[in-house]
């Protein structure tokens, strides 16, 4: 029998048991849709992380103070106090291709205004930080080099802090807030930037000159990080190496000793995050794949029932001249049609759900052609794999035994 006729015969057989066909296909539909949606959500998550990192600036090198300690006792990140503002100046002066440099150190504290109070992160920074992070002010202006040199008590509020202390959308420029009981003048409010890749709210912050944090708030000489941005086209890995070399020299580290700092690019941090979300994606897709296999077993079950039910039909077909191969193909094509139709509907459903997730839950979900091609391929493979055993069982029947089957 031609493959086209085999296909027609399979379609007729499936239509004869429409309800059963629909329920069997449903297993396939759910499996394929689940795989597509899970992969879409995972892919969406990692691409939105990458987009955020890119918006934070792809040309940024972060220097953070290392983990210090004596002997076997290791202290946490940023515990050493060897990183200083002079290091930042040295980087600006001596490393080629550097555009902006901002030393920084942070402290978490309560901020009090006349109209409310709020516990937040106080970030000490240089005046370059606004340019490095391309972060304009909504009201007022950022602090200047002059403010840093004089360690003035001026503050630029993140939008969340402004909302908490002075009311949503207000302009508190010129107001006074108290940080650790010292009066700071509000000179600006930053535009809203939203959540960062790790989930912390970037707008829940107050920026002050780092010298002010050193002298007025913490009484220290060091900084905990230096943010460096490179001119366009400058290779970041070279710059990373040069910064490390310079800092080792300045910190008088002997060859063989560990760095007391860490130099990383944002790209590196992004790749760590991306690999985490990838793991998540594989996990989700794996769970979804289980439902695909369950769907396949459903198909096998129905095909076995179908072969048993139609034993006499098989006997008749053999008696009028069907070859083993004809019978094998008939049932195999039936199961492939079943799984492919289920797969196609599943893909459509997967698209629909991904779209709904994007609209309703505001997650980004990206349906990739790879995921579609793969789940369709898996659906076809499931059809062949789980259809083969019942089909072979049918094809091996002896005509007279099949005809006499009760």
């Amino acid at each position: 029998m031609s493959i086209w006729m085999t296909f027609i015969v399979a379609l007729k057989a499936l239509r004869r048991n429409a309800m059963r066909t629909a329920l069997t296909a449903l297993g396939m539909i759910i499996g394929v849709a689940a795989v597509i949606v899970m992969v879409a959500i995972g892919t969406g998550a990692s691409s939105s992380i990458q987009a955020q990192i890119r918006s934070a600036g792809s040309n940024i090198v972060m220097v953070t103070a290392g983990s210090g300690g004596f002997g076997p006792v290791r202290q946490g990140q940023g515990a050493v106090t060897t990183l200083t503002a002079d290091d930042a100046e040295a980087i600006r002066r001596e490393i080629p291709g550097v555009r902006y440099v901002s030393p920084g150190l942070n402290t978490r504290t309560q901020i009090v205004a006349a109209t409310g109070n709020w516990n937040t992160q106080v970030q000490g920074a240089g005046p370059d930080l606004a340019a490095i992070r391309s972060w304009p002010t909504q009201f007022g202006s950022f602090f200047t080099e002059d403010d840093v040199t004089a360690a003035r008590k001026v503050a630029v509020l993140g939008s969340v802090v402004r909302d908490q202390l002075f009311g949503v959308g207000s302009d508190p420029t010129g107001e006074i807030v108290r940080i650790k009981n010292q009066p700071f003048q509000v000179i600006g409010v930053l535009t809203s930037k939203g959540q960062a890749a790790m989930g912390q709210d970037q707008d829940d912050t107050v920026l002050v000159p780092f010298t002010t944090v050193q002298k007025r708030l913490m009484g220290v000489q060091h900084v905990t990080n230096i943010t460096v941005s490179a001119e366009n086209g400058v290779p970041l890995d070279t710059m990373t190496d040069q910064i490390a070399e310079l800092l080792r020299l300045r910190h008088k580290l002997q060859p063989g000793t560990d760095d007391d700092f860490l130099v990383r690019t944002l790209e590196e941090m992004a790749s760590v995050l991306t690999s985490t979300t990838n793991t998540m994606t594989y996990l989700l897709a794996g769970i979804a794949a289980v439902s695909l296999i369950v769907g396949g077993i459903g198909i096998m079950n129905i095909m076995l029932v179908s072969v048993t039910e139609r034993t006499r039909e098989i006997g008749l077909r053999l008696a009028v001249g069907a070859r083993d191969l004809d019978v094998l193909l008939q049932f195999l094509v039936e199961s492939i049609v079943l799984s492919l139709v289920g797969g196609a509907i599943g893909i459509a459903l997967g698209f629909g759900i991904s779209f709904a997730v994007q609209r309703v839950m505001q997650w980004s979900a990206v349906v990739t052609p790879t995921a579609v091609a793969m789940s369709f391929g898996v659906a076809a493979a499931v059809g062949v794999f789980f259809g083969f055993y019942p089909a072979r069982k049918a094809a091996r029947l002896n005509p007279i035994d099949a005809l006499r089957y009760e």
Partner: protein
Amino acid sequence: MTGGHSTADVAGPRPVISTRGLTKIYDVGEVQVPALRGVSIDVVPGEFVALTGPSGSGKSTFMHLLGCLDLATSGHYFLNGKDVSTLGSRELARVRNQEIGFVFQGFNLLSRTSALENVELPLLYAGHVPAAERRDRAIAALTAVGLGDRVDHHPNQLSGGQQQRVAIARALVNDPTLLLADEPTGNLDTKTSVEVMGIFQRLNIERGITIVLVTHEADIAEYGTRIITFRDGVVLNDSAIEHRRIA
């Protein structure tokens, strides 16, 4: 019409069927049940042979061997001069498709499938037959059994006699040299049985198709030209019918 029971020794037309020492033993668990114990007969073209005998005599087993639906345990079966016992499953399928038409007691029509499609079924397995030709040949076969006006009816819309006529049309559609019928009137009332036998007789007389038919009813057997009686797996009696009934 020759009513003779020729053997291979006698010169004459080449037999359609020629069996030599055909045996069939069923394995039922540890017991071996012999159903046929050496059957040697010849059937020449144009004969209408009725196989009779009590149940368990081996006539149906013999019929299944003739139809290539089952394989003999030993012995030889020559169909149109070809030793069928040596054929592989692929060739056997071709023989069932091209050289033999089989009619069953229980009709064995595909349900929810029109008479036309039921009759077309063997043509689907007959290599490449274009759809239009399939349809024409199926309609011709249905017309030959008097159902030219029922081609689109489904089996559940047809009477028992009509269903058996559809089955006969299906057996005829590939123009086989041999028509085998296993108790074709077993599920039919007397009047319908006569109608169906009339069709067989017409095909035998007008078209010269060789027919072998299993029945346990003596009057049905008398529509043929020769009667072979089985008992306990061997041929008990083999004789020409002298006064043939005409349906």
